[in-house]
């Protein structure tokens, strides 16, 4: 979780620089500027970096959005993750694929010629995955007897989970049609199948779960490219 504050800090700088560069523009032209409509495809960089840096993580995510109408975008992500969770008493790993579909709304009113975004998005996420209990220790208050350590792996296949997600983020056009963007996500689990006499401690796409809570959090930081299909005047 320590990564998140750093990430928020990074995107806040990003956000500020994105807005201040707008100042350089002048509003003298009266020509009606046409805005680009098209399909934007990209990949999550943060998951790639984590795959290299973290020993027990590997994952990738492809994302795409399509501008449907004015400030409204249809959006989706598809990904695959393999992750681990360790505590004093047990260790689990999980791997699986997920898909998220939903919509983005651009709450940022661009200056003429700019096409940046402050995104408010909603998604429905679904994953199929497997979770493996690598091993555990029977919890006892008394340390008198030697601990009872049970070695796995015990794999539970064919698990599913679904959730709804609210996200906020930004996308900044850094080069023509090339965007850098990040977002934070608040997730609420809707359904899940759990292993027998156990629980889902980590869920691909949803990240770690919390006992007694349906909520989860996540983030994404990615690069994407806009394939312009047509242009339409802003009115």
């Amino acid at each position: 979780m320590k990564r998140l504050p750093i990430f928020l800090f990074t995107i806040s700088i990003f956000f500020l620089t994105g807005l201040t560069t707008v100042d350089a523009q002048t509003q003298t032209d009266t020509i009606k500027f046409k805005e680009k409509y098209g399909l934007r495809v990209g990949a999550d960089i943060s998951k790639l970096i984590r795959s290299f840096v973290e020993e027990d993580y590997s994952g990738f995510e492809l994302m795409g959005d399509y501008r449907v109408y004015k400030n409204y975008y249809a959006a989706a992500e598809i990904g695959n993750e393999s992750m681990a969770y360790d505590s004093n008493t047990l260790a689990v790993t999980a791997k699986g694929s997920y898909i998220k579909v939903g919509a983005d709304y651009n709450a940022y009113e661009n200056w003429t010629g700019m096409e940046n975004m402050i995104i408010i998005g909603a998604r429905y996420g679904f994953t199929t995955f497997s979770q493996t209990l690598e091993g555990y220790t029977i919890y006892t208050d008394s340390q008198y007897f030697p601990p009872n350590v049970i070695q796995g792996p015990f794999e539970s296949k064919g698990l599913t989970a679904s959730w709804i997600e609210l996200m906020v983020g930004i996308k900044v056009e850094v080069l023509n049609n090339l965007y850098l963007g990040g977002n934070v996500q608040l997730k609420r689990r809707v359904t899940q199948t759990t292993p027998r006499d156990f629980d889902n401690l980590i869920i691909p796409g949803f990240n770690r779960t919390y006992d007694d809570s349906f909520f989860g959090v996540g983030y994404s930081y990615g690069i994407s490219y806009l394939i312009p299909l047509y242009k339409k005047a802003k009115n």
Partner: protein
Amino acid sequence: MFRKTINFKGRNIVFAALALVLLTIGCQKDDICPESTATTPLIKVLFLDAENLDQDDAKSVVNLTVKAINVVGLEDTLIKRSTTSQIEIPLNTNANVTDYELTEYARVLGDTTTNIENPPNTDLINITYNRNQQYLNRACGYRILYENLQVKISKPEGDTSENWIQKITVKDSILENETTTYISIYH
């Protein structure tokens, strides 16, 4: 200038969502098993007066020493020379049997005095049970619940003295938490 560029409603939603995300992270419990959780239970042992079996009067054992035996690598004593009428003992979660040595009038280590009024007397209790694993939560992991608890009294090999324990009863064979009495020892 900022006021113009972000539409007002959108900005409110952004801040509300950010606040919600931060709150969610901030309010989560650490992954530490709370002490109040009923994990693998200890067995409560009551020492009662054997002269009035129906009364169930508490009767303290003088200088009681309790030590598990027949466990590889275990040399520690659980209870040392305690005068008490009530103890809590763990069971070995690695096996379906736990053997304890219960010594009354236990002496200080190195004390070899003979001809004393109350010589040390060691009885063995053999506890057998079935173990049931149960998942609790992320922080505590798994616990073991014991079923079909049975207790037998014996003497260490070669010890010809009389048992100081007269009778043992197990009140409940299913152990769910640590607050209930399970083994009564009459002496």
